[in-house]
């Protein structure tokens, strides 16, 4: 695996069994993602986008093939090793934000830090910094129900970056937001990608969200049917 590769998929297949029927979701996928890339995964429902994202994030295991992230073959890790690896290396952003409703913004952001050997004061400091990055300083003591959808998603992004992971995975991060809030979230992801050099893998149905990524992958029926840079995509569509 080349040094600057963040993700490498080698002949990865995934299938589910249901009532003795084998349902292929991903078939012989090969993919290299360089560090610092902002990748958008697009495709129709059932094309395998989320499954691919889950494999990259170590939430699921491939039926065959190798998933290497930061040079580590995830299929060789035990369940508990994989859980600890996720805590240290992955930031998650979900469509529905999935904040803990009984915890304040600050406490939600601190949550992943509970798993790190970090003192309480350091946790508070880092969480405050993460909230500042997402533009929510001053809202630390607000509960999720006291925030708008866009603000909740920003807290979720702060939670995803608070441990300073190299890789951020986002599953439809703007799927539940209005256009203005969605743009704000995409600006934020853009900033994380450009200024903090984070590798981001984002699943989206939204072409406008995908247009913010540096690279666009298209999946259909579990196979890669398109892989182009943003510039290539724009020139193909005749957009300057």
């Amino acid at each position, binding site marked *: 695996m080349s040094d600057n590769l963040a993700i490498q998929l080698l002949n990865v297949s995934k299938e589910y069994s249901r009532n003795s029927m084998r349902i292929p979701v991903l078939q012989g996928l090969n993919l290299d993602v360089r560090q610092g890339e902002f990748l958008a995964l697009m495709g129709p429902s059932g094309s395998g986008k989320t499954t691919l994202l889950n494999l990259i994030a170590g*939430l*699921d295991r491939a039926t065959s093939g190798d998933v290497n992230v930061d040079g580590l073959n995830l299929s060789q890790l035990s369940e508990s090793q994989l859980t600890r690896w*996720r805590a240290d290396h992955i930031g*998650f952003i979900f469509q529905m934000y*999935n904040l803990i409703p009984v*915890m304040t913004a600050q406490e939600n952001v601190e949550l992943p830090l*509970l798993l790190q050997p970090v003192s309480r004061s350091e946790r508070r400091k880092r969480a405050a910094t993460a909230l500042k990055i997402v533009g929510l300083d001053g809202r630390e003591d607000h509960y999720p129900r006291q925030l708008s959808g866009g603000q909740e998603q920003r807290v979720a992004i702060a*939670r995803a970056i608070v441990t300073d992971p190299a890789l951020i995975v986002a599953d439809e991060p703007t799927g539940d937001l209005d256009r203005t809030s969605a743009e704000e979230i995409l600006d934020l992801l853009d900033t994380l990608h450009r200024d903090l050099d984070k590798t981001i893998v984002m699943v989206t149905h939204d072409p406008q969200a995908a247009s913010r990524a540096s690279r666009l992958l298209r999946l259909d029926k579990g196979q890669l049917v398109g892989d182009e840079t943003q510039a290539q995509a724009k020139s193909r569509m005749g957009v300057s």
Partner: protein
Amino acid sequence: MKYFSYVWRNMRRNRLRTCLTIGSIAISLFLMMIMLSFLSVNQNVSESLKGYNRIIAMSSQGFATAVPIRFVNEVAQMPEVVAASPLSWYGGKYQEEVMPFAQFGIYPDKILQIWDELELPDDQKNAFASDPSGCVIGFKMAAERNIKIGDSMPLKGTIYPFDLNLTVRGIYKSPPDRDGRMLMFNWNLLEEGLKQEFQGRQAGNAGTVFAKIKPGGDLAAFCRKVDAATINSDTPTRTQTEDAFVAQFAELWGDMRTMISAVGLAVVVSLVFVSGNAMAMALRERTTEIAVLKAIGFTNGKILGMVLTESILVALMGGIVGALGCKLLFDVFDVSPYTAGALPFFFIPWQTALLGLGSSLMIGLVSGLFPAVAAARLGVIQGLRKVV
């Protein structure tokens, strides 16, 4: 400890449900404490009497047959004995009260050497000893009936065909696990009454013999000695230590004890279901949240630990309110006046309260185990799929 805040907030997430679960555990344990204490109070008192070196000699025929008064004097002459007195149940009726309280004919100059944990000021002791129709009563009885020293205390005979017109000469104080509602009067008064009735055939009746033995003596051997001394008389005795005498009343419960224990066990099992159901409901609502926690790196063990802690905390709070609350309530509030004399005293022994607390801990552990294991084994994808 750093996860405690999250556990605590989860507990308070659905306050009504948590309160209802705590309430159901608390009420059930409260009732269980009362039931178990009915059984254990006698046992507890019996245990507490062990250091007092007292024996009671009754007729081997039972309470219906009295021990002659000469046995009291014979026992008193034995070298091991500190003091001996008759303890003769009168069973009279005071005013219109339905349930009798304990009324004993005793030797005024001996009884407080035997019942040496009862406190009576010297002037009251002397006044009692010098008044043939005097009596002393317990401080609880005095307080509840507003009786003062010098008041008259008429008792209407129900067992004996004569009444007693007593005058209160003293009010004794007693520890919490002793009867604070007894009445003691001079045995001679009973004797005088009996001499007037049935041509005096029932005179000379001591009821039972109550004696205190010198410290360090072998009580069991002394009991055998007393019984040996009376074995060839018209009224052979059955002599027991005071604690054994009290314990025999607990034994009268017999099968009731087993039944109450079975009911207690059934209560614990039903609480496991109640608490387990509440916990399972709470976790079902948090499936996605648990999946998110696992996604961001919380291990199965941590999830298991947090859920179990929550379940144990809820149950423990029920235990604190139900078991310790029950103990505190009965320590402060004396229920005995409302039991029509059935219970001279009632309290929740510490071991019973701690048993209740331990039961609540076990309820929390067992009821939380299944939902906790289910939460720990929840697949991240499966959990996230609910909303993602």
